[in-house]
C-alpha cells in the first residue's frame, strides 16, 4: 500500500520537475533560441557563430572547383576519386605552347609546362561524396573545395542546388568544337609521327 502512494508521489514529483524545465525554457526563449531563419539569416561562414570564436576557419568542404588554366591533365584526381565522378579527356599538344585558338595556355601559374590540352573535365557533383581525396594528389593545386583557405581563389558557395540534374555535371574544360578537336588530334598525330 505504501508503494502505491509512493508511486503516485514519484509520478507527481518527477512530472512536475519536467514541467518546470520546459517552462523555464519557454520563458527564456530569447536567450536559448538556437534556430536561424535560413534564407534571411545565413550561417556566417567561414566565421560561423556557434558560440565560439572562429577566427581562422581552415577547412571547408563545399564544392569542387577546378582552375582549368592550371590543369596539366595528369589524371591523378580522377584516379583518387572513390566514386568516379571526375572525368578527364586530354589531347596531346606541344609542351608549353600557347594555343590561342582554343584558349589554351601552355604554362601554369606555377610555371609547369603543359603537355596536354584538356578537352574534357567534368565533375558530376550529384555523385561527389565530398571526401576531399582528389584535392591532395593534385601537383598544381588546381582542384580544390571552394571557400575556406581557398577563398582567395574562389568565394564560398554552398547553395548550388539545381533544377535539372544535368546541371550538376560541372564542365570545367574550355568548349572545343569538333573541328578544333580534329585539328588538335591531327597535331597530336603529327607529334607522334
Amino acid at each position, binding site marked *: 500500500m505504501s508503494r502505491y502512494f509512493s*508511486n503516485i508521489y*514519484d*509520478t507527481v514529483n*518527477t*512530472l512536475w*520537475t*519536467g514541467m518546470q*524545465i*520546459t517552462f523555464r525554457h519557454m520563458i527564456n526563449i530569447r536567450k536559448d533560441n*538556437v534556430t536561424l531563419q535560413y534564407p534571411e539569416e545565413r550561417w556566417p561562414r567561414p566565421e*560561423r557563430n*556557434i*558560440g*565560439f*570564436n*572562429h*577566427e*581562422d*576557419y*581552415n*577547412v*571547408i*568542404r563545399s564544392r569542387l572547383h577546378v582552375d582549368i588554366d592550371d590543369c596539366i591533365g595528369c589524371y591523378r584526381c580522377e584516379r*583518387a576519386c*572513390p*566514386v568516379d565522378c571526375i572525368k578527364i579527356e586530354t589531347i596531346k599538344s606541344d609542351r608549353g605552347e600557347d594555343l590561342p585558338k582554343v584558349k589554351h595556355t601552355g604554362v601554369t601559374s606555377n610555371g609547369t609546362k603543359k603537355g596536354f590540352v584538356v578537352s574534357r573535365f567534368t565533375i558530376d557533383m550529384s555523385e561527389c*561524396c*565530398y*571526401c*576531399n*581525396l582528389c584535392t591532395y594528389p593534385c601537383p598544381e593545386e588546381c582542384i580544390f*573545395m571552394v571557400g*575556406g583557405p581557398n577563398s582567395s581563389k574562389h568565394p564560398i558557395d554552398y547553395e548550388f542546388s539545381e533544377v535539372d540534374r544535368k546541371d550538376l555535371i560541372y564542365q570545367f574544360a574550355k568548349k572545343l568544337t569538333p573541328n578544333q578537336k580534329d585539328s588538335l588530334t591531327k597535331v597530336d598525330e603529327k607529334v607522334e609521327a
Partner: protein
Amino acid sequence: MGVVQGDQMVLNIGPQHPSTHGVLRLEVTTDGEIVSKITPHLGYLHRCFEKHAENVTYEQVIPFTDRCDYLASMNSNFGYVVAMEELMGIESCERVQYIRVIMAELNRIASHLLALGVYGLDIGAFTPFLYMLRDRERILDMFEYTCGARLLYNYMWIGGVSHDLPKDFEKICIEFLDYFEPQIDEYNNLLTYNKIFIERTADVGVIPADVAISYGVSGPNLRGSGVKWDVRKDEPYSIYDRFEFDVPTGTGEFGTLGDCFDRYWVRMLEVTESVKIIRQALKDIPQGDVFETMPKKIRPPVGSIYRRTESPRGDLGYYIVSDGKPSPTRVKMRSPAFTALSCLDEVSSGWMISDVLAILGSLDIVLGEIDR
C-alpha cells in the same frame, strides 16, 4: 491467468515508419496488441560496401566506411585505420593518436545523444530529443571546424589524419565540455527520472547476459545486461590504455537487469565517461606533425587481420585481407547493430506493439550499418 489465443494478424512495421530508425521492415505477428513473432527484413539500404571496397584502393575505402555507420563516422574510420595500421605494421605518431581518441569520443557523445534523444521520441517525449540534438549540433560544429565536414568526415587516414586540429580547438572543446556537463542533469530530470519513462522502459525487453552473448550483442547493449566488456578496456587499441575511465554496466536500478532502461542508462553514463577521456586527452596532447607517419604508398603485405574496436554501438570489427595488390581482396565489416537487431525476435515476443518499438529503440540500430 489463462492465455486466450485469438486470431493472429500480420502487421508490417516499415519500411516507412517513424520508429524503425531507417528503412527496416518488421513483419510482426500479433494477437491484438501482443506480439508473438517478429521477422526483420533487411537490405533496403544494401549497397554492398564490401564489393565496392574490392574495387578501390585502401585509402579510398575510408569514405565508404563513413557511410556505414553514418552517426558515428569517426568511429567507423577509426576501426578501419586501426585494423589497417596493424596489418601494415606501422604506428602513427602520438599527436595523431590523441586526435583520433578525442574525435572518436566526441563522436561517441554525439552518437549517444542522438540515440538517447530518439529513444525519448520512440517513447513519445519530443522535447528532450531536440535538446540533445541542439548539443549534438555543437559537436558537429567542432568537427566541421576541424575537418570541414559535418557528418561524413573521411578524417582519419592510414597513418595520420586529414587535417591537424585548428589552433584554438582545445579551448573550444573545453568550453563545450564545461557547457555540456550540466546539460546531462537536465536531460536526466526531464527524461530519465520521469516516472512515465521509467514505467515504459523498466522491466521491458530484458536481455539476460547469456542470451546477449550468444546473440553477439555488444557495446552498451551488452553492458546493459551486466557484462563488463568494453574493447577499449579489455583489448586496448590505439592509446586507450592511457586513460582512466569506468565501464558503466547495467544495475537493474528500476527493474530487471538488462531491460530497456539499463541500456538507456548505460549510454547516459558512457557520455560522462567520454567527457572524462576527452578531458584527459586534451590535457596530454603533444605537438607534432600529423602527416609525419603517413605512408607514401599504401601497399600492405600479404595477410589478413581481424580487428575490433568499440564504436558507440558495440564491437565494430573489420576483417581485411590483402594479397599485396593496391586494392583489398576482402574487407568485411562486422557491424554491431546487425547483431543487436538479430535478438529482437527473441527479446520482444510476448510484449506489446508499443514495447517492440521501445525495445527496438533501446538497441540503437543504424540501418546504414546493418545493410552496409
